[in-house]
């Protein structure tokens, strides 16, 4: 194989991986600047130790969500039924349990969860949805009662700032 010289100090430089067929590697690094928009209150709330959901107040309109009064978590800016703006509600001492769970051993690239990670889906009283999060401090079981913990000291400003622990758990 003929040898070639490349300037690989440049992060965008091409790296030769093979010649027959000709295969090249094209490294790159980039950033996305992303807004949480109308959902910002939720993510900001986590950094203050607060858990916010939303509910529809459009009663008498025939809206299923407004009739039931059930809350949404993940929260929504607009009601999925009538598309009116929803109202923010702080969930204080939510009564929650594990709906289902798994343990991740081989995550994808860019994972920031400590491994092995216990992914859980969380049933919360009064909430119609079953949000995804993660559990710390125990092996998860379906039906296990849990309570939220927040990353208020060094927030990531992402969904990782919320996790759950077994009810009554003393640690973080």
């Amino acid at each position, binding site marked *: 194989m003929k040898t070639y010289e490349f300037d690989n100090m440049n992060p965008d430089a091409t790296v030769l991986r*093979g010649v027959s*067929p000709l*295969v090249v590697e094209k490294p790159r690094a980039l950033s996305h600047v992303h807004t*949480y928009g109308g*959902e910002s209150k939720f*993510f900001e709330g986590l950094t203050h130790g607060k858990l916010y959901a939303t509910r529809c107040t459009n009663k008498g309109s025939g809206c*299923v969500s407004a009739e039931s009064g059930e809350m*949404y*978590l*993940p929260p929504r800016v607009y009601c*999925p*039924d009538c598309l009116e703006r929803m109202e923010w509600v702080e969930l204080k001492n939510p009564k929650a349990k594990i*709906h*289902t*769970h*798994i*343990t*991740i*051993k*081989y*995550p*994808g*690239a*860019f*994972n*920031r*969860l400590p491994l092995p*990670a216990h*992914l859980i*889906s969380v049933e919360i009283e009064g909430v*119609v*949805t*079953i*949000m*995804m*999060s*993660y559990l710390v401090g125990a092996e998860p079981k*379906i039906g296990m009662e849990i309570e939220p913990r927040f990353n208020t000291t060094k927030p990531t400003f*992402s*969904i*990782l700032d919320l996790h759950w622990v077994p009810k009554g758990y003393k640690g973080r």
Partner: protein
Amino acid sequence: MIRFTEKNLRVPKQMRPVYVVAGGQSDYKKHYPEKKTEELAVEAFKMLAEENNLKVDGVLGLKGYIQSAFYGHFADHFGDQLLGESVIHDRLGLDPMPNIGVKTGGATGGSTVWMAANAIASGYSDCTLALGWERMDEVGTQEGNHYIACAADKDWETELGHIYTGYYALMAQRYWKVFGKESDAFRRTMAKISVKNHGYACSNPFAQAPMRLTVEDVLKSPIVADPLRFLDACLMSAGAAAVLLCDEKTAHELSDHPVRLYMGAGTHTLRTADRRPMEIPLLPHEEKDEEIKRYYKEELSHIDRYPGFTGFLAARMATYFAYRMAGIENDPCDELDVLELHDAFTISDIQTYEDIGLRPYGRGPEYIESGDAFLKDPETGKRGRCPSNLSGGLIGNMHAVGATGIMQIVEVLWQLQGKWGQFHADPKMWERFGKTKPADFEDLQVSDAKTGLAISHAGVGSHVTAAVLRKED
């Protein structure tokens, strides 16, 4: 929506009949550096044009019929190419006829054919091409898993592990606990699906992962996300597949054996979190069955919420519409002769058996245990009522995402045309892909197959299409 009106549920109409006329595929590999994506697409198209006994003069003759093209490509970031549709269309030499790209995650292939079928049904085109491709080998497996996880909600799910298998496994775990009772028997049923599909792949020259396995092999393979193991999961592939759809007159002009096509589609929330409880929409045969209705109302509703994490409402809605369009009113196991299902994972395959009515909700494993799922039951030697994934499916054959749903329709088409052997049994087909026809090759042509079904599925059930193919009398 969790409440429907009659208008929502009106059975979709084709303004004129739609026919599948021809199919073609590349072979499938995890790494395919020998060929560019464009080459794979051209090879699939050439097979479609030249090897389906069409009454035209090869590629040039067929191009004289094509009025529009629908392209399925799941992931711009995997391909690292926006407007890849335009690249492929140029390499096929179909400019300046119109083309459009279709994207619905894992169901991209099925959705592409759905859109193409509607172009025929509406009268917009008399002859249209649906072609799909994917190549997932430009990035490493971990980066690839991140790219796939971008098809979850980026603020609410992707950050949690960057691995789609995890999001699926949450559903799997719930099903396994609620209906599987965490039993070894249930786990073995899951494993049998992997054994079956890897085994059928051994007789498919296009397939990426032919393997003769035992249940124990599957149960001993490494855990990815419990209870899902390596051999419970689908493949990552590079490859392309194509079908030709026509109106009745053109179909018969081009082919002696065109096959009718009916397609329905459904969707559900990208985040499983958002799936609100509702009543089960009933398939035609369930509507007539008082026992199933009683079971759903009095028993199932107390076991778990519907569709929750155990059912795929999108698959239920796709068949809700497609069965009614095609007049499938009785037990689908009696009406369907051959199936290609989206076996992304062994457990989601079981969940889908229920959504599409092969068994009532909660009883999916019976489709495997009864032998219905096999061409020949490995235990009893009896012919199954409606065998599935004789191609090897996503577990044994391929999951080149944009091509997958199209591959399924191609395989069902060839089965109904009695051409399975032409494309799988000829030693030259094996040699074309650098393979040798194996000594343990099995004839997987379903004799007298009249009606087939292909299910294409995305996300953790975000989009599903159901294609019913029926041979003319």
